[in-house]
């Protein structure tokens, strides 16, 4: 890697001073810190860069274009999306584009949607990177053009670029980016660049093959599971069987006697067995006996908790939205509808059980993980290690799924790994903490359990005049780093999707009763909308039925003022053949629509219910508006995957507690969707010129209510408790 010339450095500093506040400028300036030792330590093996105009781009002498991704690739296609945006403005050749994960450095790589924190979540990767990376690419392009103009002594305006090659038509000269890179590196970074007219996009909106796919097809993709460092040991941690219990005492002898076990150490979360192999660590942990102090542990069952939630729904609660007077409107209505919905705790169960590798010494902590929350993890790791955050470096690897699990304010799995390395002796021995699937299912940080109670009133013309919605459940944000987001007793992640209800109703009341349980909870793919969209969309269907209206037409008429939501609803209905007449006996169609993270999704589900009540979801038609579609095929894939993920949860998944103990262990008792249960899916993307929004999560929300409404259409029975009753399961 060649250091930039002093001229370039001072120019970018000026650039920063002039345009402080512009995120790209910040990145450009601090980009030179990035060339210091920490950056080199993190650099992946690859062609040396000769041109690195900002923290997001390196062009090698061989013409390779390396895009530095500040977002983790956990399946959602972020690496490909990020590269598409930057490569578009750079006019790079897609075949020469590769992606490298950024190091943990919030100054350079903050998620602009999170403020000053580096991390991935809230379907924000593309939305927050869009302008930043377009500018980064455009500045790189401008500098490569300036280099060619300088070399050929021609005006920049006479040059064109296509697929990583600069052309001068007049003199029939051309030069590839690689050949221009070192000259470009000596030039000042321009203050302003003109971004492309979207009509000229060559990559955005077209099909760029995912950059990570080849390595994920031949087994060579590197996950944390695959990290193998010289002398590395493997640790398994025995955690308390009840939430809130702690270690009273333990006997390490049986575990230590297992061949291959090196050490048994106590850490704040439990007792770890450190061994030469997974198998030795596993046998050691099986042999380990620990006495737990469960005097402060959660000992209730989820059935008890849900009873308490039901009672709480009858008491006054905090107001999340108040329009008009819903109680009065419902009281004076000619017809009322009421229903309640119950949602279980859910585990994320990413395919790769949580894991992290830590190499700890007296003055440094190096971490390898499918890290989703770099800044938070850096801080928590430092605290656990007794170091400063800047002494902690993170190699972000591919994550084998996350669905929110790897982004948590306590950095649970990272802190465990660091504290084990510390208890082991902090002698620089790399230690891989490996969770088993049972650890994952028992491990807490679940999607909270919720109870929803809804009431609605119709007037004599069968118009919806009042809507009352009470939500009861734990807060995700309370008591942690995001506590500041909780205002007037309202955690926005408990009510989003309900307090943001799009339907035009003159009187609305949305209330929240926040409960306190010792069961740790966390955002789970699509967060609040994972339950609120179900409640709103299942209930509006009940209201439409009570009003004697078609469920699609009823929704559409209440969305006149919401053109984007209405458009996805109409497109899904149209493509599904909603108005093509009734389904045959035993089959039904259901519709649902929702907005999450500013992306609009509508889905129509078609189900078959056999004479024993067993449900098969045959087909799902999905319409999505996520602004400018950056990678249409990735968008389709996220909708398909979101539908499968959401469908598995509503049909099968629940974490339940009996006397405080989690009753599920592995994929036999925590059921998720399998191949034979996956419906056919069609995805339709609304063309749009709006700024792009995320697609990783919003596809999850509508599928549950769409299927529940389809079951009603087929059978006349409503689903009020999730997961669907066993009798519905094939």
């Amino acid at each position, binding site marked *: 890697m060649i250091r930039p010339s002093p001229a370039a450095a001072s120019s970018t500093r000026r650039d920063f001073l002039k345009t402080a506040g512009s995120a790209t400028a910040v990145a450009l300036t601090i980009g030179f810190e990035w060339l210091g030792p920490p950056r080199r330590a993190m650099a992946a093996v690859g062609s040396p860069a000769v041109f690195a105009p900002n923290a997001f781009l390196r062009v090698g002498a061989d013409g390779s274009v390396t895009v530095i991704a500040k977002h983790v690739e956990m*399946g959602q296609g972020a690496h490909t999306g990020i590269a598409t945006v930057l490569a578009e403005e750079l006019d790079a050749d897609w075949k020469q584009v590769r992606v490298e994960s950024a190091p943990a450095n919030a100054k350079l790589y903050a998620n602009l949607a999170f403020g000053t924190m580096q991390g991935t979540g809230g379907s924000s990767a593309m939305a927050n990177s869009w302008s930043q990376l377009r500018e980064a690419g455009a500045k790189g392009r401008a500098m490569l053009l300036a280099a060619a103009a300088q070399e050929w002594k021609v005006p920049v305006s006479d040059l064109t670029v296509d697929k990583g090659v600069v052309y001068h038509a007049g003199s029939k000269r051309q030069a590839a980016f690689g050949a221009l890179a070192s000259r470009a590196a000596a030039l000042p970074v321009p203050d302003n660049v003109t971004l492309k007219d979207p009509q000229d996009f060559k990559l955005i909106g077209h099909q760029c093959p995912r950059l990570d796919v080849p390595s994920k097809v031949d087994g060579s993709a590197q*996950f944390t599971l695959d990290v193998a460092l010289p002398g590395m040991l493997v640790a398994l941690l025995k955690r308390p069987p009840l939430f809130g219990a702690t270690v009273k005492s333990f006997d390490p002898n049986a575990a230590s006697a297992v061949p291959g076990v090196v050490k048994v150490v106590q850490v704040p979360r439990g007792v770890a067995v450190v061994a030469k192999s997974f198998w030795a660590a596993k046998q050691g942990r099986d042999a380990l006996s620990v006495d737990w102090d469960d005097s402060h542990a959660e000992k209730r069952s989820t059935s008890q908790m849900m009873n308490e939630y039901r009672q709480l729904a009858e008491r006054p609660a905090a107001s999340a939205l108040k329009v008009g007077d819903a109680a009065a409107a419902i009281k004076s209505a000619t017809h009322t509808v009421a229903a309640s919905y119950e949602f279980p705790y859910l585990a994320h169960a990413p395919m790769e059980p949580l894991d992290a590798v830590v190499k700890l010494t007296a003055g440094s902590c190096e971490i390898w993980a499918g890290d989703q929350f770099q800044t938070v993890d850096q801080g928590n790791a430092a605290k656990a290690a007794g170091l400063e955050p800047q002494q902690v470096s993170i190699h972000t690897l591919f994550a084998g799924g996350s669905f929110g699990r790897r982004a948590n304010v306590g950095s649970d799995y990272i802190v465990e790994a660091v504290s084990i390395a510390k208890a082991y002796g902090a002698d620089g021995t790399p230690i891989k903490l490996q969770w088993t699937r049972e650890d994952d299912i028992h491990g807490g940080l679940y999607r909270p359990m919720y109870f929803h109670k809804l009431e609605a009133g119709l007037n004599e013309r069968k118009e919806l005049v009042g809507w009352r919605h009470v939500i009861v459940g734990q807060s995700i944000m309370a008591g942690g780093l995001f506590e500041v987001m909780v205002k007037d007793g309202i955690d926005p992640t408990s009510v989003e999707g309900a307090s943001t209800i799009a339907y035009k109703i003159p009187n609305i009341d949305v209330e929240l009763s926040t409960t306190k349980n010792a069961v740790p909870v966390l955002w789970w793919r699509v967060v609040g909308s994972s339950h609120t969209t179900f409640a709103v969309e299942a209930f509006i269907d009940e209201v439409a039925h009570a009003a004697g209206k078609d469920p699609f037409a009823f929704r559409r008429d209440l969305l006149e003022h919401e053109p984007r939501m209405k458009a996805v609803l109409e497109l899904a209905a149209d493509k599904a053949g909603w108005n093509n007449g009734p389904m045959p006996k035993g089959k039904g169609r259901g519709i649902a629509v929702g907005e999450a993270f500013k992306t609009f999704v509508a889905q129509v589900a078609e189900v078959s219910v056999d004479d024993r009540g067993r449900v098969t979801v045959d087909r799902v038609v999905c319409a999505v508006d996520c602004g400018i579609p950056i990678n249409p095929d990735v968008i389709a894939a996220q909708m398909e995957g979101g539908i499968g993920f959401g469908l598995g949860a509503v049909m099968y998944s629940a974490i339940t507690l009996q006397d405080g103990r989690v009753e599920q262990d592995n994929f036999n008792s925590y059921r998720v969707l399998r191949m034979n249960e996956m419906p056919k899916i069609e995805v339709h993307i609304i063309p749009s010129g709006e700024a792009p929004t995320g697609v990783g999560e919003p596809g999850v929300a509508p599928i549950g209510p769409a299927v529940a409404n389809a079951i009603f259409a087929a059978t006349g029975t409503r689903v009020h408790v999730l997961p669907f009753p066993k009798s519905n399961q094939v």
Partner: protein
Amino acid sequence: MSTSFELNGVSTTLDADPAMPLLWAIREVAGLHGTKFGCGMALCGACTVHVSGKPVRSCVMPLSAVAGKQVTTIEGLQSKQAKAVQEAWILLQVPQCGYCQSGQVMSATALLESNAEPTDADIDGAMSGNICRCATYTRIRAAIHAAAQSIKA
């Protein structure tokens, strides 16, 4: 204790506890990392390898059980069915997080090696033991059909 078998066409002797699951022997002793750990209980298929040409869950098979047998992992796939599967996987952009995909490719390859033109029901039968939490199932199904067609062509 050591166990000898053929690993991806190479005769191999691994010095490890014969009770160690084949998965961990392949990963930690032989150093081949394409085969993944997802459940450890034959419930997810992430650890699927071929033993004597048949797909097995290596997380529950002790190393001793493959003595003298042929074991193929994702790194050793050679057959025309395997190549067709991997090409179709790329063409249809199947993987998301990718963690389950070695297992999916191994199961799909074994299916096509025993059934040149599987129906949807055959695919359900052969692939329902392979969980994909990213739910790439529609593309897996389409890619298996595409691979079958490409071999026929």
